[in-house]
Structures are given as structure tokens and as C-alpha cells.
């Protein structure tokens, strides 16, 4: 990419040459019954070539609007959209080199499977023999060879989904946008399709941008996830980073199950703080920055990281006591609900590695302990 192009774009040269999609300060405001609705409140995002990228968030968080801005169905109120370093803001959807898989699949019901998949190639004026060859090849990849003549209605939900995928991928777009594509499938099929999507993405090597509200789906498939809430990106990182180091209370609560404990700072060191919890319990937690003694601090710890015992676990840096309020046996694991001495409800998952009885029963007094590095003070932990 010539340097002159990067001169007028504020993005660094490396990003301009490598990133498949770049959003710069994208804002989208709707007018609805005379009222301004701020769907997207300023998003900066760089998605690399070949990446499986997820936009994750609850409904109304702006993830679908963000995707529609990339596709060209919505023009941003402010900001720029770049594809492959080229500014495409204002370019209509039919002239953008991205394709979309719609939530409703949006297959053309009056066309056969073949005609559906060939639609994009024919619009581009690809030669007839080439259209036939590439369509057949793509139907092979999505495992639908031999179904060319069927109408979409004659296919099952999973098959329709794969036709929609083939119809988009056959154009070899710079990026594939997927809008909750598995939402209409039942659980078994959805899990199978997650694996299938990953396989197809590896096979075709195209950038996938995946919009979902299902955190499990996002964690299972993505290289990176942007967690969105209320029109902004709350956190951007790999599934592991987002799960293990939630940057905000929202992310901690939205991804998986989190236990939230509130205490006051007793001692504040260089990279750890000791928090006074409940009557007189101490919890050590890694932090960035120094806190005033007595300041309130919230920390979070994942249910599977907590060790639950009937006796005191020794001189752990993080241990609190509580009473078991519920035991739920789930086969592979057992969940314990514990009321802590300070009155918070904590969930603990224990793997059922042996067929031994449950560690504790309802009403037992128990000790909860964990390694300091498995807990995070909310808002102070910068992603590594």
C-alpha cells in the first residue's frame, strides 16, 4: 500500500495494509418519532485479515447496527468505514466487497439452491462455466452437493443456513458478516454448526465478523471478541482475556457466571491490595494503582476457580467463610450456592472427577478459597 494513502487516513500504516475492516469513530443516531436514538456511540475497531471476530452483547447494544454499517445498509452519522484500507463510507451495499449471512437467511424462495448461490456471481458478470464451477465447489464445501435443484423451502433449517453461507462465500468477499446466523437452530444443530463454521472459515480463509448475543457461541468460535453494551465497546480481546480478565462489571456479568464481592481497602501495595471483607476477613487481590485505605473495591472471581472445603484451607491469601444454601447436582459438575459472612451470594462449581459424595450439604459451614491471581478488582485491571 502506498504511503500517500495512509497520509490522509489517521490509521497507522501497518493497520492500513493488514486490516480487513477498520471502523474509525463510527457513530449512528436514528430519528425515531422525533427523538434521537443513539444506537452506536463512537466505535473504533480494527479487524485483521482472516480473523474470526465476534461482536457480542445484549439486544439493543448496537452490535447489529455496527454490522449493518460495515455491510453498507446504514450510513454512519459520523466516522469512517474502511475495507482493506480503502474508505468505503458512502459506498452502497451492492458495491462493497463484503457479504452477509442474514438472521432469517433471506434465501430467495422463488429460486433454486443453485440460483441462490449463483446470484452474486451472475451480478458480477462472471462467465457461465465459471459460475457453475464455483457454485458447485461451494455447495461441496457446505456439504450440499446434489441439492442444487431444490427450493429453499424443501430444505431443513440447518441446510438453509448452509445455503445462505454458500451464497455469501461463493463471491470470495473481503469479509463475511454473520448476523446471529445460528439463532433459529435448535441446540444440537447449533453446536454442530459452530464447529462447521470454524472449519469452513479455516478452509476459505476469509475474515468472519460474527454478531451474537450468545456468549458461549462467541467464546467457542472467535479469535477476538468485542463485548458491546449501550452503543460502545466495553472490552476487546481474545476469549480467554475477556473471560479471565473482565474489564468491567458488565463484562464480568455478561460473560459466564461471576461472583461479585465488595469490600474496603485495608492495605494498598504496588500491584496488590488487601481488602477487608465482612466482619474481619482479608482478601488479597491484584490491582493496578494505589488505593486510599477505606476505599470501596469490588472484586470478581469465577465459580470454577473457587475451592470449597469444610475445614480451613491453611494460610491462603484469599479465604472467606459462608453457609451452603443450595446444592445442585449437574452430572459433570455440582454447583453450590454459598451465603458469605458478609451476606453476598457466591456460586461455586466443582468438577465431579470421582463418584464420591458431595463435599457439603445444605446448611454446612464452609471455607471458600482461591488463588489471588484468579480474582480481579473491577475496573483496575488493564488487559495484559
Amino acid at each position, binding site marked *: 500500500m502506498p504511503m500517500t494513502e495512509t497520509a490522509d487516513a489517521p490509521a497507522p500504516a501497518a493497520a492500513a495494509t493488514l486490516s480487513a475492516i477498520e471502523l474509525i469513530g463510527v457513530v449512528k443516531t436514528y430519528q425515531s418519532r422525533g427523538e434521537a436514538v443513539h444506537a452506536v456511540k463512537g466505535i473504533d475497531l480494527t479487524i485483521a485479515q482472516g480473523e474470526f471476530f465476534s461482536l457480542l452483547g445484549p439486544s439493543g447494544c448496537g452490535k447489529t447496527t455496527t454490522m449493518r454499517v460495515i455491510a453498507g445498509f446504514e450510513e454512519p452519522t459520523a466516522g469512517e468505514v474502511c475495507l482493506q484500507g480503502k474508505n468505503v463510507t458512502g459506498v452502497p451495499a451492492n458495491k462493497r466487497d463484503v457479504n452477509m449471512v442474514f438472521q432469517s437467511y433471506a*434465501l430467495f424462495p422463488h429460486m433454486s439452491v443453485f440460483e441462490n448461490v449463483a446470484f452474486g456471481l451472475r451480478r458480477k458478470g462472471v462467465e457461465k462455466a465459471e459460475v457453475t464451477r464455483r457454485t458447485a465447489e461451494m455447495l461441496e464445501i457446505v456439504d450440499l452437493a446434489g441439492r442444487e435443484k431444490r427450493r429453499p423451502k424443501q430444505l431443513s433449517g440447518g441446510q438453509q443456513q448452509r445455503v445462505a453461507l454458500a451464497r455469501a462465500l461463493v*463471491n470470495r468477499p473481503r469479509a463475511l458478516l454473520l448476523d446471529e446466523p445460528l439463532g433459529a437452530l435448535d441446540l444440537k444443530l447449533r453446536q454442530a454448526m459452530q464447529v462447521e463454521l470454524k472449519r469452513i472459515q479455516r478452509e476459505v480463509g476469509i475474515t468472519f465478523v460474527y454478531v451474537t448475543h450468545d456468549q458461549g457461541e462467541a467464546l467457542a468460535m472467535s479469535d477476538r471478541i468485542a463485548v458491546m453494551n449501550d452503543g460502545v465497546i466495553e472490552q476487546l480481546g481474545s476469549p480467554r482475556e475477556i473471560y479471565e480478565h473482565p474489564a468491567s462489571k458488565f463484562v464480568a456479568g455478561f460473560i459466564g457466571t461471576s461472583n461479585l464481592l465488595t469490600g474496603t481497602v485495608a492495605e494498598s501495595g504496588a500491584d496488590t491490595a488487601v481488602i477487608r471483607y465482612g466482619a474481619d476477613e482479608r482478601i488479597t487481590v491484584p490491582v493496578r494503582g494505589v488505593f486510599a485505605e477505606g476505599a470501596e473495591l469490588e472484586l470478581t472471581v469465577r465459580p470454577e476457580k473457587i475451592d470449597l472445603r469444610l475445614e480451613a484451607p491453611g494460610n491462603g491469601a484469599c479465604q472467606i467463610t459462608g453457609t451452603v444454601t443450595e446444592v445442585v447436582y449437574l452430572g459433570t459438575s455440582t454447583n453450590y450456592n454459598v451465603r458469605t459472612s458478609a451476606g453476598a451470594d457466591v456460586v461455586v462449581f466443582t468438577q465431579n472427577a470421582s463418584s464420591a459424595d458431595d463435599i457439603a450439604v445444605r446448611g454446612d459451614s464452609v471455607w471458600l478459597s482461591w488463588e489471588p491471581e484468579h480474582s480481579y478488582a473491577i475496573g483496575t485491571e488493564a488487559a495484559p
Partner: protein
Amino acid sequence: MSTRTAERAAPPAARRRSPLGFLRGRSLHIYTWLVIAWLLLPICVMILFGFNDTQSRYNTKWQGFTFKWYGELFAIDELTTALINSLLIALLTMLIAGTLGTLIGLALGRYRFRGAGPLNLVMFAAIACAEIVMGASLLSMFVTLSAPLGFWTILIAHVMFSVSFVAVTVRARVLTLDPALEEAARDLGAGPLTTFRLVTFPMIFPGVMAGSLLAFALSIDDFVITNFTAGGTVTFPLWIWGSTRVGTPPQVNVMGTLIFAVGVLLAIGLRLIARRRAA
């Protein structure tokens, strides 16, 4: 247990034997056939008297079977002209109202725009308005504009009252369309016109067809509004009305039969197409 099931099985058998029970089981069938008979009987009479070997001026008494009138279908020049006028007006109405109504239906079904509410209201007013009122006001409008009454004023009037029916039919169809279909077409590289030609129009085609045929049917047998706006031009219904005082010739029955037959064939054809599309 076994005695109880035997008891339960008994009543239907008993019911079948009583005459009231016979009615109870078949009342829906009987009612259905009564309605069908009621609807079809006048049409059967019309078809039948097209084969009547009538000798008098009045074709009201059965006088024997003949195919004569089919042979002499176009023997009455004025009637033939009237039929051609009606067919021409109905075809043009179908095309013009079909096109305009489709565009209105698309706009109302797909977009929100200023004036959509009033447009809906005006359309329903046009549908609900009594024909006699509409005819009278069209006449006074044409007279005020000093437009010469005739073929073109009839056509304008017919397009005017049938366009709402097409628009309503098409809008209903558009509302059932997934907006993502058009977005998908655009996403795959189709411009607005190509999207309309390849996706939108084929999808709303059943609605367009139904609306256009409705416009044709409304136009070809319209009497009230045509009577006001015709001037010296005579259409098929106007000619028949004029002939009733001196005796309606059997050719009218034959033409009516043929128009009816074409309508039935069209309906069956559309049904078959729809079934093949669904399969």
C-alpha cells in the same frame, strides 16, 4: 371396563338411525351445497339460455336446444362493438391500474413517508364510496373540465376506481415480505433496478396478478359509473341494459358464458401455477 366402552360405542350407532342424527352429522355438507347452488344457479340459467332455440324477441321461455347462437355470435354489429369496447377498456384498465396500483402498494407496504396515512384513507374512501355517487361526481367533473365524454373518460373513471383494489392487494403481499430479501440482493451486488426485477417483483407477482385481474373484472362489467361517463360510447353492460326493454338476444348469454369460462380458466390456471410454485 369392557361394558363401559361398549356403552360409549352405542350412541353414535343410534344417532345414525334417527333422521335428526342424519342431519346433525351432515348439516355442514348440506349447507355448503346449498350455498354453492345458490351462487351457481343464476349462472347456469345464463349458460342454458345461450342454447335456447328461441323464436320470439324475448329469451325467457325454453323452446329447444340449439348451437345457433354460437354460430351467430357476432351477428349483431352494435353488440360486437360494445363487447370490443368493454374488452379494450378492461384490458387497458388492468394494465394502467395494475402498474399504478403496484407502485402505490409497494410504497405503502415498504416505506414510511409523509402522506402515507391520508393516502390510505383516500384509497379506502374510493373503495367504500357508493358507485352512484362516484359516477355522478365524475360526470360533473368531466363536464366542468369540458372533457368530451366517451372511451377515454370511461377509461379514466375505471382506472380511478380500480387502482385502490390493486394497491390494497399488492400492499398486503408486500407486508408479508422479509425486508432482508431485498437487502440480500443488494448485498450480493444487485443494484436497485436489478433487485426489483429479480427479487421484489417475482415475490409480489401473485399479488400484482390478483389485483390486476380484479381490476379487469371490475371494469368489464361496470355499469353505474360507465353509464355516467360514457357519453355516446356503448359498452357491453350498457348495450345489454338498453336491450332489456326490447328483448335481450341469446348472443348476450353466449358472450356472458364465454367471459365466465375465460374467468374460470384463468382462476384454475393461476391456482395451478401457485401450486407448482409452492411445491
